[in-house]
């Protein structure tokens, strides 16, 4: 097990994410939707940084448990939490936010879940970490940090509010 990112590196990655989203924004109106769990915390931190920059940001949270494609293989179905999107999804420009982009299956599920709330005008993807090894055609629009990993590595992100500290660890399977 190795500590790949320390708290400082994670903060830098979050700031980079917020900066690139802000720069790309045309009118300062930004709608973030974080994917549970940890994507919601990344989204919340980006949300705070964007507010400081004076952007008009709205924040929602999406639980994608019911949209997963691997129910068959789980011993127990994932624990559900509520999704909270208080603004209309119809016709809005949504930025989905997640902690780690890996196979892309979570994003597929999140897109399905999001579209059951309405028909967004556009959807973009922002991730704190892109670790590669996609199994679906998903390309992030905003990335905090790119990490080189092996397909079988286990990448574990811990975040302050969810886990008590900021850290990213990579465990290699030999």
């Amino acid at each position: 097990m190795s500590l790949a990112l320390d708290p400082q590196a994670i903060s830098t990655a979050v700031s980079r994410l917020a900066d690139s989203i802000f720069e790309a924004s045309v009118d300062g109106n930004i709608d973030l939707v974080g994917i549970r769990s940890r994507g919601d915390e990344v989204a919340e931190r980006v949300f705070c940084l964007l507010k400081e920059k004076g952007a008009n940001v709205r924040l929602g949270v999406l639980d994608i448990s019911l949209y997963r494609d691997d129910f068959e293989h789980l011993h127990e179905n994932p624990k559900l939490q509520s999704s909270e999107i208080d603004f209309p999804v119809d016709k809005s420009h949504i930025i989905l936010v997640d902690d780690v982009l890996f196979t892309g299956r979570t994003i597929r599920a999140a897109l399905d879940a999001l579209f059951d709330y309405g028909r967004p005008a556009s959807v973009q993807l922002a991730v704190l970490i892109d670790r590669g090894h996609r199994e679906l055609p998903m390309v992030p629009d905003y990335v905090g940090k790119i990490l080189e990993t092996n397909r079988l590595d286990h990448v574990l992100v811990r975040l302050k509010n969810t886990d008590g500290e900021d850290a990213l660890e990579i465990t290699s399977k030999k």
Partner: protein
Amino acid sequence: MARKDFLDIVTLDREEIIHLLDQAKPFKDLFTRSVKKVPALNGKTVLMLFYEPSTRTLSSFEVAAKRLSADVTIFDVPHSSVTKGESVRDTIDTLQAMRADYIVVRHRLSGQPAAIARQTGASVINAGDGAHAHPTQALLDAFTLREVHPDLAGKKVLIMGDILHSRVARSTSTILDKLGVEVAYCGPGSLVPHTHFKRFTSYDEAMKWGPDAVYLLRVQKERQEAPFYPSDREYHSVFGVTQERLRRISEEGIYVMHPGPINRGVELCDDVLDYERCLISQQVENGIAARMSVLYGLKPQTS
């Protein structure tokens, strides 16, 4: 490891109950979306096996299963070959061939859903068996009460009516007991069993106990060979919520619940339905969410 079947409340521990109740909330939240359906049980088959007539419970399960994207087949037993002499066992063999993943069973005999569960890899859900149990009703009742009293411990619930023949009374009092609620029974003496719960045979005595909610049981004329009361009017005046009693209930802010379908002018007067603390319609809506939580929480051993 998740359970295969959901047969009663007695065998669930407190953590499992809390988990099922907590999980029902995100399902209820879905009902306000434009698309009320999620793909969680996509491709799964839910079979409704009702040996006893039911409209409300059957529809509630059907809506719950469909909102989880399962395919639903209703095996309409009273009109099927069961009446032609086919045994439950033979019916199960037929159903096995249909490869159902979930079987929702209602039967007039206690223990029949459990017997079916032992013969199939499908998840079996008890939708009411004899006077034994109606566990999804219990779950929706507890969920509904928790919406108005998030911490149920120490609250008092009075269950009123024919306790002896009621599977609702049995399951609902068991779940409430496990959640730390004080339960009391009230009804005609011969129909209120002696249990470890408080027992009243007079409406006024029971109300002096100070319940936070009154749970009215349906007078089930079809389940009794001889009615325990000479007339509906007499039941209403002795154990029903009359206009006058509603006034006191309302002054004291007591919640009113009923599993449905209601008999107007028997268990309650019409005005109860407009009473702001009447939870009967919430119970119906919550029934769908609670049943989604149960379906989602089980693991069929079919594949």
